[in-house]
């Protein structure tokens, strides 16, 4: 193969590239000269014709301080005679006018974001080009105001309230003692076995709560599961190691483990050495974790939280030392690697479900139910919307299309 490549290199490659390069150059020159010729053609270097129909009005759904200007493009816009539209503003119709911004060729709107609310402003739009400029009539007065509700986002509010309501409703009913059924999650049984295995082998357990800070809900889920693991470990003499990538996660994990050992009746077994901060830097962190792995040879590795590229570096190193590995993350990009390299993987939402399942707390179980309501809405919407649009395609009944569009609009975000 090497020889073949070499011969290719000698024989044809370089001339071909040079040929291509000069071809490109030639083409560019041609295109350039052509554009010059055409640009000159329609209106021979004169000023472009003006934009028309200018309008100025308050920008809707904002916090004020902005006026939206719209106009119809100059008829010369597409011919390359217009460089853009400059917006001038004044407090009185007869000036003095000051430039407040510039919209490039082809754009027919501009938001002047530097207005004082409730003062009157007058605008004119100046169409500029290589051959000069022309202006529209002065428009105004326009005033900016702040709105109290962004009606474009009403649908987000409705859907947000619906899902939040469902979550809160189920949390309340779970707290009242209502039994909520949650299906078994494959891989969770493995957690217990994996802890047992480490105990039998007399080797440590490594727990990685992701590399994000406590403000990431995945880290919160990871630390919750850590609490469960610690409670189980407290019964045995297994060593637990938790290297963290964030200082706040370190202190939170310490307190969580301490509490878990306390509730298992073994507070004396806890020590701060179980949890250590390494560095915020992703790869510095993984360099150190890899070192811990090959030196301490844990029997079991848990990866529960938010992960990035370091996921596979850790999982492959863990694999090379023969550890049982259980992962869980809601970072879609890293899931494939965990699925490939670990024995069990909690996929996306399952991570949150696992923390609910293991902690068995009503508020977590309840919110899991609430999420299921959300998914039901999603599935219903997909099924109904698809059916409506498809029926319209087959039967050509307009009503189906408008109903489908109505449904779809519920999810359109502005």
């Amino acid at each position, binding site marked *: 193969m090497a020889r073949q490549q070499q011969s290719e290199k000698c024989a044809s490659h370089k001339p071909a590239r040079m040929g291509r390069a000069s071809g490109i150059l030639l083409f560019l020159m041609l295109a350039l000269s052509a554009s010059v010729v055409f640009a000159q053609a329609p209106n021979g270097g004169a000023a472009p014709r003006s934009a028309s129909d200018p309008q100025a009005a308050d920008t809707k759904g904002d916090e*004020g301080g902005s006026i939206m200007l719209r106009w119809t493009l100059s008829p010369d816009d597409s011919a390359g005679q217009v460089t853009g539209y400059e917006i001038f503003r004044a407090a009185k119709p007869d000036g003095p006018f000051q430039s407040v911004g510039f919209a490039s060729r082809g754009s027919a709107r501009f938001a002047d974001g530097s207005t004082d609310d409730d003062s009157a402003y007058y605008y004119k739009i100046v169409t500029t080009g290589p051959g000069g400029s022309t202006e529209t009539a002065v428009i105004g007065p326009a005033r900016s105001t702040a709105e109290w509700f962004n009606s474009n986002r009403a649908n987000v509010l409705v859907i947000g309230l619906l899902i939040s309501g469902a979550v809160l409703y189920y949390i309340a009913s779970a707290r009242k003692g209502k039994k909520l059924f949650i299906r078994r999650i494959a891989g969770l049984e493995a957690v217990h076995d994996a802890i047992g295995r480490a105990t039998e082998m007399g080797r440590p357990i490594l727990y990685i709560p992701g590399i994000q800070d406590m403000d990431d809900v995945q880290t919160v889920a990871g630390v919750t599961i850590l609490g469960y693991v610690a409670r189980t470990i407290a019964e045995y003499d297994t060593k637990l190691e938790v290297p963290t990538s964030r200082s706040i996660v370190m202190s939170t994990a310490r307190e969580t483990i301490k*509490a878990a050992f306390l509730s298992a009746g073994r507070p004396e077994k806890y020590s701060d050495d179980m949890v250590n*901060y390494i560095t915020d830097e992703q*790869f510095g962190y993984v360099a150190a974790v890899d070192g811990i792995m090959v030196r301490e040879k844990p029997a079991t590795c848990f990866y529960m939280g938010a992960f990035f590229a370091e996921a596979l*570096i850790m999982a492959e190193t863990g694999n090379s030392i023969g550890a049982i590995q259980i992962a869980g993350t809601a970072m879609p990009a890293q899931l494939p690697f965990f699925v490939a390299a670990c024995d069990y993987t909690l996929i996306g939402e399952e991570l949150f479900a696992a923390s609910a399942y293991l902690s068995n707390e009503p508020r977590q179980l309840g919110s899991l139910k609430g999420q299921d309501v959300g998914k039901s809405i999603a599935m219903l919407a997909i099924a109904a919307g698809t059916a409506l649009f498809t029926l319209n395609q087959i039967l050509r009944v307009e009503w189906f299309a408008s109903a489908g569009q109505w449904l779809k609009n519920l999810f359109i975000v502005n």
Partner: protein
Amino acid sequence: MRREIPTAIAFFVGIICIIQFFIPHRPFGTLVDVFSDWFGIVAAFAIWLGALNLLKVSLERSFSKKKTHDRWYGLVVAASFFLIFIIGMFMSGGDQFQVPGSRFDYLYVNIYTPLSSTMFALLAFFVASASYRAFRARSWEATLLLIAAFFVMLGRAPIGDQLTGFMPEGYRLSEVANWIMTYPQVAGQRAIMIGIALGVASASLRLILGLERSYLGGE
């Protein structure tokens, strides 16, 4: 009070961030902007906390009674930290520290960059060993994993198209790979994304309402 005040802070800040999305009127937008500045400041202090923690741990390790080899590595950690700290703070022209040609930039280019890039580059090897081990047709699911990976891998590399150059357009490997990426792959990705969105939204709701306080440490 050790829990109530933090819970109240999280509630207040979280609710304002949500309100701001729906109510553009002052003061909400401005408040969220201010919060964002504060967030940056607090995050900077968190980095300091981490660095101080690291120094504490590695110096403790270096000067511990146990005469292990580890103590030398602890010293190396501390020495490296002080090296870049002193150069970055005092010897690189203040806030111009990142300008190409500064001493700080010299360390960045010649130490920081090779270390992090090489660590990252180990993935090239691990991705190969992981795919050798994982992609075996043990079950129907594993076979799907294998097939999808196989076609996309080949289709991504230009060689895939050279191998299938004789095929009519639309059936070449890169097009098969693109098809997998745009249809079945997107379907799975969408399900995962919607699920995660609901999980994140409901967890965030619990955090804001103070129903979830595990981030405050052990409960």
